[in-house]
């Protein structure tokens, strides 16, 4: 858990990143290091949301960067490098999941404070939600909503960028986000 997570919500300046990519394509180690450092957290977040297991997510993250590097010269630049890389991370994690069988569930405790049917979501109850409780609840969401909420709130992507990563429309990304938040509020109220 990262209680003081520093979110990099603003995208890297486009020109700076283009220069970095150019140098990485030419094999410059420092440029490669910079790209890995910049996006490790993003890639791991996607892998963890797909696989649910930190060890599997760690393996998938490494493979995702290898896959991306091998395909770097094919990156056309019509999407941002970040969303391109995260799309690779998503596909790589899903491949991992298929290879090892069903998604390995981290042992989940019951979400504390789950509302009984008919109760009204109260601001007071939500205000007392801890970070761990919220994180456990996110893991329960279906994959599309899990990813939309994670990428929006924890990684700072726009709906358009989420759509580029997940292969859906911007509108569908927005709907998945709202559906995820709605479910979380119901579970945690």
């Amino acid at each position, binding site marked *: 858990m990262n*209680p003081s*997570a520093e979110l990099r919500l603003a995208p890297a300046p486009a020109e700076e990143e283009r220069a970095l990519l150019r140098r990485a394509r030419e094999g410059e180690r420092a440029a490669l290091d910079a790209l890995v450092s910049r996006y490790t957290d993003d890639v791991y977040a996607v892998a963890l949301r797909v696989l649910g297991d930190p060890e599997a997510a760690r393996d998938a993250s490494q493979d995702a960067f290898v896959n991306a590097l091998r395909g770097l010269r*094919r990156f056309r630049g019509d999407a941002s490098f970040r969303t391109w890389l995260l799309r*690779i991370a998503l596909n790589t994690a899903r491949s991992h999941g298929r290879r090892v069988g069903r998604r390995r569930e981290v042992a989940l405790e019951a979400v504390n404070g789950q509302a009984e049917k008919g109760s009204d979501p109260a*601001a007071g109850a939500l205000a007392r939600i801890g970070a761990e409780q919220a994180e456990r609840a996110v893991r329960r969401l279906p994959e599309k909503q899990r990813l939309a909420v994670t990428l929006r709130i924890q990684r700072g992507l726009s709906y358009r960028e989420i759509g580029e990563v997940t292969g859906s429309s911007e509108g569908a990304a927005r709907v998945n986000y709202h559906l995820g938040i709605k479910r979380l509020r119901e579970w945690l*109220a």
Partner: protein
Amino acid sequence: MTHMSCEDVSDRLAELAGDRAPDGALDAHIQGCRACAGELALLAALRAGTPAAPAGLRESILARVADVEPSRAWAWSAPRLVAWRAPRLGPWWGAGALAAAGLAAVVIGGALLRGEGPGAEAAELLASSEVELDGPALAEWPGADGLLAGAPVLAELSEEELETLLEEMES
């Protein structure tokens, strides 16, 4: 001060990270809306609970990629960007439907200009009366996010309705 809907607030809160500058309209809405105040607390908890990459992951990735040469001929293709698409019609159905619609528009338009047909009376009524539009101004309708003007407000939909909307958008 611009009045904000719960959905506007939800989208705005999602944009903000941690500490935020005072925003009169946003703060006024949150102070008066328990649901949105609760969502603000939920988002803060989610952000605080952001999983951190395990220690040493960056180094292990760098070690793995150290020996990988970017390949010219690797089969991986860049992901295809999927924009929101209008429903696809088959080539002949699509062309036929468009042609029929165009012809109908010409016929109906001509009839209206001559003051004929069922639409003519309606056209006269509209021209002679002051019609007040009830609802948000056009400028407030969702624009570039793939939802058409007139689309439902997401915050007001149930889970089942949201899932149905998703199925329609993704089909």
